[in-house]
């Protein structure tokens, strides 16, 4: 009648099209964008982050990604704490960013194995929704880009940013 449960993995991320992911973000109360170290190497990702921020989404810059962002005029809510810290904060229901409680976090520009651990922590121990807009499918996220070819990735990011509503 059912699966014999020794396949050792629990919930896997829903892989969604960029527009759908954007819709989820649009529906959330206080989403944040969390950026990682790839922004130091990849100007395109900086661009995407800037444009997401322009839609009114606050940025938490990890991994020293604040530097290129600040240069592009972004004012991150945090610049100093590594993703490990930020995750520890987010796991605490008391954590607020300027009085607001994060209900959804978008991740951009992290090493896959590094982000994966963080997503796993939030999956098991918090109610925050996590959205990975990364070139890898992230099973531990709540929602993730599907498995895509390299060249399609930037196009997907475009579609994602395009579908974000401006927040006020």
């Amino acid at each position, binding site marked *: 009648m059912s699966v014999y449960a020794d396949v050792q993995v629990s919930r896997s991320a829903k892989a969604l099209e960029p527009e759908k992911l954007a819709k989820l973000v649009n529906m959330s109360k206080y989403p944040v964008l969390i950026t990682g170290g790839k922004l130091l190497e990849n100007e395109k990702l900086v661009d995407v982050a800037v444009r997401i921020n322009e839609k009114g989404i606050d940025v938490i810059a990890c991994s020293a990604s604040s530097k290129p962002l600040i240069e592009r005029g972004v004012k991150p809510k945090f610049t100093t704490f590594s993703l490990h810290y930020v995750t520890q904060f987010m796991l*605490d229901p008391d954590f607020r960013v300027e009085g607001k409680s994060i209900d959804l976090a978008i991740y951009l520009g992290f090493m896959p194995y590094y982000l994966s651990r963080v997503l*796993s922590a939030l999956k098991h121990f918090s109610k925050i929704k996590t959205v990975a807009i990364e070139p890898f499918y992230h099973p531990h996220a709540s929602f993730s880009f599907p498995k895509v070819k390299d060249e399609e990735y930037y196009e997907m990011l475009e579609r994602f940013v395009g579908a974000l509503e401006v927040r006020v």
Partner: protein
Amino acid sequence: MAIKIEDVLRNMKLENVNITIGEIVEEGKVKAEAEERKEVREESLPVGPTPKPHILDLRYWDRVLLERFEPIYMPMQDFCNLCTMGPCDLSFNKEGACGIDLKTQKARIVALACSIGASAHATHGRHLLEEMIKEFGEDHPIDLGLEVDVVAPNIMTVFGIKPKKLKDLREVANYVEQEITRVLHTIHTGQEESYLDYESKALHVSMIDHVAMELADIVQISCLNYPKGDPDAPLIESGVGALDLEKPVILVIGHNVVPARFIDDYLREKDLHDLIEIAGICCTAIDTTRYDAKAKIVGTLSYQLRIVRQGFADLIVVDEQCIRADLLRECSKLGIPLIVTSEASVRGCEDRTNDDVNDIVDDLVNGRAKGVLIRDMEKLAKVAVKTAFKSFLRRSRRNVSVNVEEEIKKCVNCGRCVENCPHSLRIDLAFARAKNGDFSLLKELEETCIACGRCEQVCHRGVRIVDVIVRIGEAKRGKVRAGRGPIKDSEIRNVGQPIVMGTIPGVIAPVGCPNYPRARRELSEIIEEFLKRRYIVVTSGCHAMDLGIEGGLYEKYGGDFDAGCLVNVGSCVANSHISGAVIKIANIFAGRNLLGNYAEIADYILNRVGAVGLAWGAMSQKAASIATGFNRLGVPVVASPHCLKYRRGYVGKFWKRDKWWVYDIKSGQKVYVEPCPDALIVCAETKEEAIVLLARLCFRPADTYLGRQIKLTHYLELGKKYLGCYPDDWHLFVRTEQDLPLKMRDELLQILEEEHGWKIDWDKKKILEGPIRKYDPGFNPTLLKDIYEKYRR
């Protein structure tokens, strides 16, 4: 507007008048008195409350730490299958069939990893101890040189004796083994219900690990004529490029010097020393070069497969730990003879200990035996040397040719290798570009690859990926200062005060395994930033090698334990000299009693000694226990992104004000303090982030304002440089306007007023309101009620 550190220092000198007050004075006094009574102390040292502690005896200290530095778990696996009631799905913190929940289960795995780590050093130490007793007698003195009187700070602080002879260490070894067994016991199904108690066990067994490491290293230093705290220990020729390939090459791999030492002795005895290259990978490399400065260091773990695949090793001799588990398979493919020597790493080889030397040599050279076990070290030496010569003659027969172009052509860029690469390295892209003649990505791949071979396991086209990568690389060459062992008591006497005051802005200790790609390159960049800023840098193990081979830093920076130094203490087990040095600060500089007095010492260190570890790519269970042992001692560790896979961090929440308090012995009050350090083990993703984080974790509540000024200067500068702005939390570290770097004072006061709403008296340039607490030069913090009460009395 970058601030020059020199300016700050100059400014400080002007103000350098009234700083030796308060605790500093007290400490100085205690120190002086202690010095006088040295003779007496030797015989009748007081013993603190916890000699030979068992798990529960220091649990109260662990609870203090864990209250602040809350564990954070990042499960690698949602299931548990440690017993036959499982597998149990623990996702979302559900409970398994034994009732354990996911967090507790993860903490259990951490405690297990630390137990494994500690057991490695314990066994290594026990082996050395019994070997040396056999050779030198149990009355052989423990001797780390004239200038090292506090020979065993970890053993003293934990176990509660000051060992004088080898035989004194036997009971220490018994204790270490007992404690490891006791912690391992708790891993059994059906024990802890709270993750905090597994963390307490992890902390306990990791403290024991430092005892075990110290035991191991003081035994070998005492018996094997290693450098004894020598700042000018010789510079060792290192890197593949340093090898003389005209000679037979014996490659030693592992962590235990014994086999290499016997080979080395035999070569000298037979006057063959100049005819053979002895070269090492991993900690055996370091310890062999402490024994014989003519031996060479090849590199770290990630060189094992590279070297084998290059085929120039004429014989490989392995001992234990961190040896690739495919070495015999890999060697035998090329016909490289392998000798195994340790019970830990026998690899299915036949025990040939009782066979005739020539028979063994013949079997090895002819490939009849792919590998042999030899348990008798004298025989090993003979076999090794003979085999190396004979095998050398056949080196040309080893087929190591790779047709790089052809291999690259075979690749269909499917990406399966990328999925299996622990670092998701883009082999597919590198090969695709290389097909079109652009080898830049392939070069980049070579730089970052740890040569683990997982990509080859899944390539259905049989591309010899690692071989191609190896072929692309160049032979590195550099110099590594031989491991000097302990920090001398006199050095501690000199730097104790500036470290505790904060005028040496911090001690940075890069220790660990370089299995984070780019670690080699990045590590040197991180460290040089701190060397230039005149932090103390003290290193060990694979990191110590990389700083020489990749960074060339030993030639630029001195080996005295002082501001701006780069001190290599030795192999993994020499990490105990780093923990030992911070302990010695509490003892030699501050006069705190060591014997059986762990919690007081750790509390002292946590509040006063701005030392931070850096594990830029920690890999092994030993790395886990070493780091966790530092943590129990109050020393934070910054780790590479890979280290999230340890599943657990100790990360505090700076924004929870009520977590950050101490008892102030001077004022007799509980006071809120700045959140420093605010993590005990925490990961960073990039080198830029790691640099800022290291500087940040050097703050301590007991910093004088001079020290705080210097630390803030670096922190602010590094923030600007790497984050593009001042760090988010710099203001939390400001207690008084005197804490602010002089040259930036106006700017900073303005920010404090405008952005943080502090009240400033602009006439006097004084802060009126805002800081967490007032600065008090006599501030004397402790987190322990019993210490508070003891010193209030």
